[in-house]
């Protein structure tokens, strides 16, 4: 299969230099430097209006940048119109041509480049996306998932240097989306083309991408491997947008050792200095963050069984919801100082029947799992409550 044979090329590097986009007084993308390594699966992640789609469209040539340059494999393509760029896009809601059948939709790019015998390539491509029997159907006769696969086939058949995906799975239901995520990942590994994927779904970005750039308000907040972003967020936006984080404002009691000593309400908490994004100073303030699944819950009666060396916080269970693999608790604690309660996810291995709303509990976790953030930021950035900050 020519369409899917692993090519010798290792994928094209995409380099954006000081690229920005303004519409009148509104700046959609602030000057941005971004390098997407060749052959990688790169995700631009952010809420709607964060500039991720605009960035993608500037790479495709569908939007002229207000400043800066776009380079593909070292060649400046900023001035090239879309039809002269060796990139293809899988559009949000697919943009399949309704007057052409599936075969002609997939063949469109080949025909435009003057390739006469498209039959074999189109056939192979339709087989790859398992739509061989649908060649003569019209797009509107296909289901959402099938249309999505046509959109991918229509772009991939051109062997683009870079494949751009603009929220391609947004219109699919959850189960199909999971399936297509794995499918796209498989295709990317197989063809070795650089994929740039725009999404607002943090789980999707983490599942599929090698590198994720989290965007907020037209800027890249943080860039890195999914696990790094998740374990060591550098801003409250990333901490809250990528999964859920408990952020606790704390005073720095001692910043001299390799472990910082912090105090929130009456609890003393430890935080490894290297897991802190700002230089802490004694007497200052910090946000200490901890992911809900890293916290263990112990009933207050058993507080003595909590091993030494763990961060401990007391609280009272406000709500608990059983969701199968885990139980999610919201716990009111003096350390939150009236802000949102702490979230705790407990795996359903051995359930303590005393852990019901109203129960007094001790929350404890390994200090190495916490992270420190600058306290000057909004603690709610990236949450539903802090939308738009």
């Amino acid at each position, binding site marked *: 299969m020519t369409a899917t044979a692993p090519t010798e090329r290792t994928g094209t590097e995409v380099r954006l230099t000081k690229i920005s986009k303004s519409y009148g007084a509104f700046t959609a993308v602030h000057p941005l430097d971004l390098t997407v390594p060749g052959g990688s699966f790169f995700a631009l992640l952010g809420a709607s209006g964060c500039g991720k789609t605009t960035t993608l469209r500037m790479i495709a040539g569908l939007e002229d940048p207000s400043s800066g340059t776009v380079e593909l494999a070292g060649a400046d393509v900023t001035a090239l119109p879309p039809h002269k760029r060796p990139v293809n896009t899988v559009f949000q809601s697919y943009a399949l041509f309704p007057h052409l059948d599936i075969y002609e939709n997939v063949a*469109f790019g080949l025909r435009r480049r003057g390739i006469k015998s498209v039959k074999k390539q189109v056939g192979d491509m339709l087989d790859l996306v398992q739509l061989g029997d649908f060649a003569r159907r019209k797009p509107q006769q296909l289901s959402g998932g099938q249309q999505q696969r046509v959109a991918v086939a229509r772009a991939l058949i051109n062997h683009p240097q870079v494949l751009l995906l603009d929220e391609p799975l947004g219109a699919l239901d959850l189960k199909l989306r999971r399936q297509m995520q794995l499918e796209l990942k498989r295709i990317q590994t197989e063809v070795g083309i650089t994929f740039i994927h725009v999404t607002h779904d943090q789980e999707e970005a983490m599942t599929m991408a090698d590198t994720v750039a989290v965007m907020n308000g037209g800027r890249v907040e943080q860039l890195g491997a999914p696990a790094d972003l998740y374990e060591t967020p550098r801003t409250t936006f990333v901490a809250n947008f990528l999964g859920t984080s408990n952020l606790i404002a704390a005073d720095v009691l001692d910043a001299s050792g390799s472990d910082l000593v912090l105090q929130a309400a009456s609890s003393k908490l430890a935080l490894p200095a290297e897991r802190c994004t700002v230089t802490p100073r004694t007497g200052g303030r910090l946000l200490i963050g901890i992911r809900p699944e890293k916290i263990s819950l112990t009933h207050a009666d058993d507080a003595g069984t909590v091993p030494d060396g763990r961060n401990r916080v007391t609280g009272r269970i406000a709500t608990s919801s059983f969701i199968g693999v885990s139980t999610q608790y919201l716990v009111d604690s003096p350390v939150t100082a009236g802000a949102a309660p702490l979230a705790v996810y407990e795996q359903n291995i051995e359930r303590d029947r005393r852990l019901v709303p109203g129960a007094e509990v001790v929350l404890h976790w390994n200090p190495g799992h916490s992270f420190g953030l600058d306290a000057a930021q909004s603690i709610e950035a990236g949450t539903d409550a802090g939308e738009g900050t």
Partner: protein
Amino acid sequence: MASPQATATDRPAPEAPPALRAAARRKKLVPYWLLLPGILWLLVFFAAPLVYQASTSVQTGSLEEGFEVTWHFATYWDAATEYYPQFLRSVGYAATATAGCLALGYPLAYLIALKAGRWRNLLMILVIAPFFTSFLIRTLAWKTILSDGGPVVSALNSLHVLGLTDALGITEGHRVLATPLAVVCGLTYNFLPFMILPLYTSLERIDPRLLEAAGDLYAKPITTFRKVTFPLSMPGVVAGTLLTFIPATGDYINAELLGSTDQKMIGNVIQSQFLRVLDYPTAAALSFILMAAILAMVTLYIRKSGTEDLV
């Protein structure tokens, strides 16, 4: 009429109280009540005159002695053989005017639908603005514009175009008025909005992402137009050409005011047979022939353009 209500109430639950069943029955009748005014209107003002015309077309007699149904179908043959030049001329003028409307209207509709931005509504109002003045007044105005001493003739004269158009037979004796050109221009002008409106509607409905997708798939802007925009605007093209061609074929005002006896269209013949010659059977027969001819042409056209599922 299998309305959903009807099927739902076909089998009322056995214990349904009578009041509820009566309400359901009333609900079932609602669509028919809604149809009634329209049906009555069509019966009185369309179906009845049509039947009357059909009967007139097979009558013989004269105004003095009165007309009588004699099933004289020869009237059709006589009318067709006598007036076929006017039939052909009507179709020719209407087709030319339709082509002119398409050539003028498509770029304009394209501009308004895809490029005008916030000027879109203003431009659409300008397109339909002529409707605020009477059709007759506007056509009379064209008489002045195209008159021998008028701006058009002097402009064409100074460009020495009229010699050429005279040679082609679309103007005569270095004048524009009372020539085929004048009639076709009048038709084009008068029916242009009927072309632009459906074109605009179908162009405006095109998802701009499809055009982006075409560009993304290596189509040059002109190819995008040829392969995506134009095919997707076909419903508008078909609707616009029909809305222009059909009334233009039967039109008589433009030929009456802007043409001479040499530009008489079939509409003028029907009008004079009815109102001047008072030969009602011939006039009625001509109307039916025109109707049948247009129906046949339109059917063929829709088949050919393959847009039955798009319209």
